[in-house]
C-alpha cells in the first residue's frame, strides 16, 4: 500500500488481533437509531448514504475508535442535522439536558 488511508474507517489490510465473534442482539436504542437514519432518508432530510458515511468518517480517529457503530451514526446524524439547519447543536444540547433531568426525576 502506497496511499495514505482517507480516514479512520479506511482500515483494509491493517494489522489487527483476533476477531471477537461474540454475538450481540441489537438493543432497542440501536434499533431506534437505525430507524431514525432510514426515516431521515425517506423524508429526504439526508440525501444519500454517502453523506452519512462522510459525516461518520469526519468524526476523527478518536471518536471513530471510541464509539460504537450506532453511537457513530448518532454523532454523524447530529452533525448533519446541524449543518442542514434541521436541529441546531444548541437545541440538541438543551434537549439532552432535559432528558437527563427527566431521567433523574423521582
Amino acid at each position: 500500500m502506497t496511499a495514505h488511508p482517507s480516514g479512520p474507517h479506511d482500515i483494509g489490510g491493517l494489522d489487527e488481533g483476533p476477531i471477537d465473534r461474540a454475538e450481540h442482539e441489537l438493543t432497542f436504542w440501536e434499533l431506534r437509531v437505525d430507524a431514525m437514519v432510514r426515516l431521515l432518508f425517506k423524508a429526504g432530510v439526508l440525501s444519500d448514504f454517502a453523506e452519512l458515511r462522510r459525516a461518520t468518517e469526519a468524526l476523527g480517529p478518536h471518536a471513530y475508535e471510541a464509539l460504537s457503530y450506532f453511537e457513530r451514526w448518532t454523532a454523524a446524524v447530529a452533525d448533519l442535522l446541524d449543518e442542514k439547519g434541521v436541529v441546531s447543536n444548541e437545541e440538541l444540547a438543551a434537549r439532552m439536558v432535559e432528558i437527563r433531568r427527566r431521567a433523574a426525576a423521582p
Partner: protein
Amino acid sequence: MTARFAVGDRVRIADRTPPAHQRTPAYVKGQAGVVVYLCGAEGQPESLGHGGDGTPPMDVYRVRLAQTDLWPDYRGSRGDTLDVEIFEHWLDPAER
C-alpha cells in the same frame, strides 16, 4: 454514455487521496487488475458525500486483483484474488 472499459481489460486504480469522501480503499490504490464485471453507473461518492447530486453518474467496475500483488508477504495460495468495485474516474488503462 458507454463504459470506457470492458470485461477482460487490465486497469490500474489511481493512487491519490483527494480531500473528499471516497469509496476507493487505500490498500488497492496504485494496484492493477482485470475488469471482471460491469456493475452499472452510480452517482459519484465524492459529490454525494458532500451534499452534491453525484452527477454525472460513473460506471462502476468489479476489478479482480491478485492477492500476491496486493501483499508481498501474502500467506495463502497463489491463485487467491480480491474483487473490489471501483468507479471509472479512479481507473486508467494498464499494460498487460
